[in-house]
């Protein structure tokens, strides 16, 4: 009997699962930082202290200086979607709550979640506690305003609003626009002091500004390292590390993560290695938010076709740069860091510059059903890219959180077509 027991066929009917590659230290640090943020928010809640929910690109410096925990529904929705846990919330928002399929899926997911926060079986990963106030800046889109209005009404909590202006004709906002946004930030600080019943520590605030600048600068330096051919990082890594700037732009722990990441990337350069899991034969510029639920499939196909999406037009949205202490500079930066607040030619010419800087052979555009603002410029913009950067462009349908939109077969055909064109162009057969 013991012979039978020892035969591998009898004792292990299933092949052993492929061992997962351990996460690099920097990624482990990101996970720890995220977990800590959520834990702090829950701890504050339990202690009866206020917790905020904020739009993704809001002057976080103020709450950071106050030491008040803030979480970010867009970032939270992305994390939940990447884990394929978003559908029940989206279904709840569309079903019981009656929100239409045409609005942003981050909004649907989050409003669906907000509606069940007090249910005893409320579960999400990561789970956000009930907020006590909302921070809203409309610099990435105006849909956020209605979303937050709904939240405010449903949860009966105040909104602190910074109204940012669209820049049709200029990359640099006009002085009166800067003044307008600056006065709102000042007003926001005053109102937050009243809400929290304590004064802002201006020294701390300056420290946070300095820290935020260090972090943005470090992230830029890391992103720039991906200009190298072959790139030391899979471009999709940027989506993961970018979350540090969303969630913890003003924290020292982000500095530590970015220093570690930079060292890892430099090590890759030194050893001629990369986190891109395949051979990098083609470099593309990715346009739009990631299809979070399909990130794994997208990466698998990119690897199969030897395509590294080395850079994307999304990660720079948190590059909120200004001189610490300069409130005008800060007001200007918050108005323009997201390219959503710029005109199509301005956005696309920025992309053209980036395509040239990163040596991209093609562009892959996510036609995102949810995010009209990060999609509409693609249709006209592709002509600008084709004529100014002389590279082919392919579009595919998808969504950042709604799992019903993306089609694996469509994505693969478009990617393969793009690769075949890039190959012919590289080989000079065109």
């Amino acid at each position, binding site marked *: 009997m013991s012979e039978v027991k020892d035969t591998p066929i009898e004792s292990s009917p299933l092949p052993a699962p492929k061992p997962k590659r351990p996460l690099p230290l920097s990624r482990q640090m990101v996970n720890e930082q995220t977990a800590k943020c959520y834990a702090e928010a829950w701890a504050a809640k339990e202690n009866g202290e206020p917790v905020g929910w904020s739009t993704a690109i809001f002057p976080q410096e103020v709450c950071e200086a106050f030491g008040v925990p803030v979480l970010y529904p867009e970032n939270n929705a992305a994390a939940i979607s990447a884990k394929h846990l978003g559908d029940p919330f989206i279904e709840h928002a569309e079903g019981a709550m009656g929100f239409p399929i045409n609005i942003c899926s981050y909004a649907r997911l989050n409003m669906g979640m907000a509606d069940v926060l007090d249910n005893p079986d409320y579960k999400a990963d990561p789970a956000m506690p009930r907020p006590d106030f909302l921070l809203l800046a409309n610099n990435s889109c105006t849909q956020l305003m209605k979303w937050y209005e709904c939240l405010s009404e449903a949860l009966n909590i105040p909104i602190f609003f910074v109204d940012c202006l669209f820049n049709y004709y200029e990359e640099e906002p006009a002085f009166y626009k800067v003044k307008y946004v600056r006065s709102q930030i000042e007003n926001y600080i005053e109102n937050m002091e009243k809400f929290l019943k304590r004064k802002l520590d201006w020294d701390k605030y300056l420290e946070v500004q300095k820290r935020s600048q260090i972090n943005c600068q470090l992230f830029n330096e890391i992103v720039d390292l991906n200009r190298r051919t072959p790139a030391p990082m899979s471009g999709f890594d940027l989506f993961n590390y970018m979350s540090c700037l969303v969630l913890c732009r003003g924290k020292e722990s982000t500095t530590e993560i970015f220093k570690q990441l930079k060292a890892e990337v430099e090590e890759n350069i030194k050893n001629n290695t990369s986190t891109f899991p395949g051979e990098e034969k083609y470099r593309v510029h990715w346009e739009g938010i990631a299809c979070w639920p399909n990130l794994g499939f997208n990466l698998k196909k990119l690897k199969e076709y030897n395509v590294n999406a080395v850079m994307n037009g999304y990660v720079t949205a948190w590059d909120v740069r200004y001189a610490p202490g300069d409130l005008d500079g800060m007001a200007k930066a918050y108005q323009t860091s997201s390219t959503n607040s710029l005109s199509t030619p301005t956005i696309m010419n920025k992309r053209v510059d980036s395509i040239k800087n990163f040596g991209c052979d093609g562009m892959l555009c996510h*036609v995102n059903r949810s995010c009209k603002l990060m999609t509409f410029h693609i*249709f006209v913009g*592709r*002509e600008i890219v*084709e004529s100014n950067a002389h590279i*082919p*462009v*392919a*579009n595919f*349908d998808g969504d950042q959180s709604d799992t019903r*939109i993306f*089609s694996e*077969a*469509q994505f693969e*055909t*478009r990617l*393969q*077509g793009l690769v*075949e*064109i890039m190959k*012919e162009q590289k080989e000079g*057969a*065109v």
Partner: protein
Amino acid sequence: MLTMGIDIGSAACKSLILKDGKHILSKEVFPLGTGTSGPNKVFEQALANACLEHKDLDHIMVTGYGRFTFDAADSQRSEITCHAAGMHFTMPKVRTLIDIGGQDIKILRLNERGKVESFVMNDKCAAGTGRFLEVMARVMNVRIEDLGALSMQSTEEVSISNTCTVFAESEVISKLSTGVKLPDLVAGILASVAKRVASLAFRNGVEAEVGMSGGVALNEGIINALSKELKTQILVPELCQYLGALGAAIYAGKEAL
């Protein structure tokens, strides 16, 4: 050198055998797509037509929606570049290629060497595709291949306003019940497909000559409606249905070298 290209679409399969990258020895089409017996049928039949056996072929390349599922293939390639190569082989002056497939619409801009410079494809929506025409033909109880001839008899086109296949189907049913003439309704349906395809074509820029590939190109009514929308003549090669398979056979020759 003998190469075979097989185009396994969502609605039909096509195959073609090429000698030395120049001479077409055999071709076959079968009106069933991926996941059916269609791929094997066109493979066997194309060989039988040319009195050849599998072992005589130097390379088999598969393209189309079902390109990953055919075991006898040596390689596969996207339908985008295959259609371009097929069109260039038959009509080298074509610079804008329109292909209406079962579930895809492709608009390709080609250079003088037949290489794709840019392409656009439909959104994830059946409007304007071959499947849309199939659904409409079924609801009107006419054969899809008769749509073109029927539309020619129209005296007053009945316009169809819905682009969504499901709503257009209901619209057609309700129009039929009001007693409109069948040819007028067919003309309206073809015009709606043409409008949809034309808007996509304009997105990619329309440069003469304009050529069309795919089985839908055999439908005169579509060609007329599309010429009207694009305000230009549309060239249809005799081999329009086989251009994907032809392109695959051409690329197969390059890979076999």
